């Protein structure tokens, strides 16, 4: 189960990040994940839907049940997914804080 304390893979985190501000279809997730602010992950359709399938199975993501004109399916985070995303964000933030502190300390010594 992904909700455990194990770090999320970059692809999983990028998908959760893309869905954190609302439901999206596959291509929208891909586009946002490819942005530097979205993780800079270039996900192809094969990787995207394989990962989405596991996230749905682990109850982190669910289909909204809605489709648009082109019959694109939309996905959103579940409550479990939000908790996992928040936990991972906190873990990464803690790492970043440490990294910044060490970089600054090293800069001060130089």
């Amino acid at each position, binding site marked *: 189960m992904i909700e455990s304390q194990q770090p999320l893979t970059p692809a999983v985190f990028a998908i959760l990040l893309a869905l954190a501000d609302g439901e999206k279809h*596959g291509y929208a997730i891909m586009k946002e994940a490819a942005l530097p602010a979205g993780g800079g992950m270039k996900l192809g359709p094969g990787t995207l839907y394989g990962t989405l*399938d596991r996230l749905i199975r682990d109850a982190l993501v669910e289909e909204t049940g809605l489709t648009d004109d082109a019959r694109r399916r939309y996905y959103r985070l579940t409550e479990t997914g939000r908790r996992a995303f928040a936990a991972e964000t906190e873990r990464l933030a803690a790492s970043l804080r440490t990294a910044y502190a060490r970089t600054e300390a090293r800069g001060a010594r130089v």
Partner: protein
Amino acid sequence: MNRPNPVFFALYRGSLHLYPPRLRMLYQDQMLQTVRDADVERSSGVMSFWFRLFIDLIQSSVKERLLMIREPIFARPVFFYTLALALILTLWGFPAAMTLQGVMRSAADQPQIQMAQNYASEIASGHRTVEQFPDGHVDLATSLEPFTILYDSNGKALHSNGYFNGEILAPPTGVFTWLRTHPTDKFTWQPRPGLRIAAVAQRIDGAHPGVVLVGRSLTLVQQQESLLRRGTFVTWLSLMAILIGGAAFLNRAQGAAGKPATAHGHA
């Protein structure tokens, strides 16, 4: 509205068969729609766009198929331990059987080694002459008895009590060459198809140089080896069957224990 390159799109649609069937059934339409969407907004060239898509499809197909194999194994510890045990038994069992086979073959060189050394030292010291070699008629095709052939330094047979179809056999030519620099040669001699002999050739030094060859049919050892091979295979097969049967039983028992007690719940 832009449409993706029809040739590449058709090829991609066909290549989706690489993807595991369950995922293909669930996501094929979505994947194709995503490709259409990406093609509309693509900033790279046609070739690089499709190249990336195909690479992704191949990589993800391999990954998903491996996960499909791995997940059931690791999800149930009983399958994991069964697989590990089967691997250990196989990796341990086959080398052990091969070692045993090697030991059996080495054992087949006795008593020829001792006999050849004794004869060679007796001739070299003058305690035995050609006339004093064992007489008799050992038929190499049928007998399991050891036989002795004495050759002079030119390879000419001086005496023999072993015959094949009434003839004294000449050893492989390499034996005499080897014995120029080594005192002994142990080898499997196959003078005729189907006839294998565990042979020991010993160089004779001294006043009457030559070679004494003592051999014995390997028929018995071959039968034992064949029995060992069959026994090993049957044992391995039985162990695997027991392991698989045991794993299936434990898996079923675990599954039954994990089921909710519905009868109690409805009571």
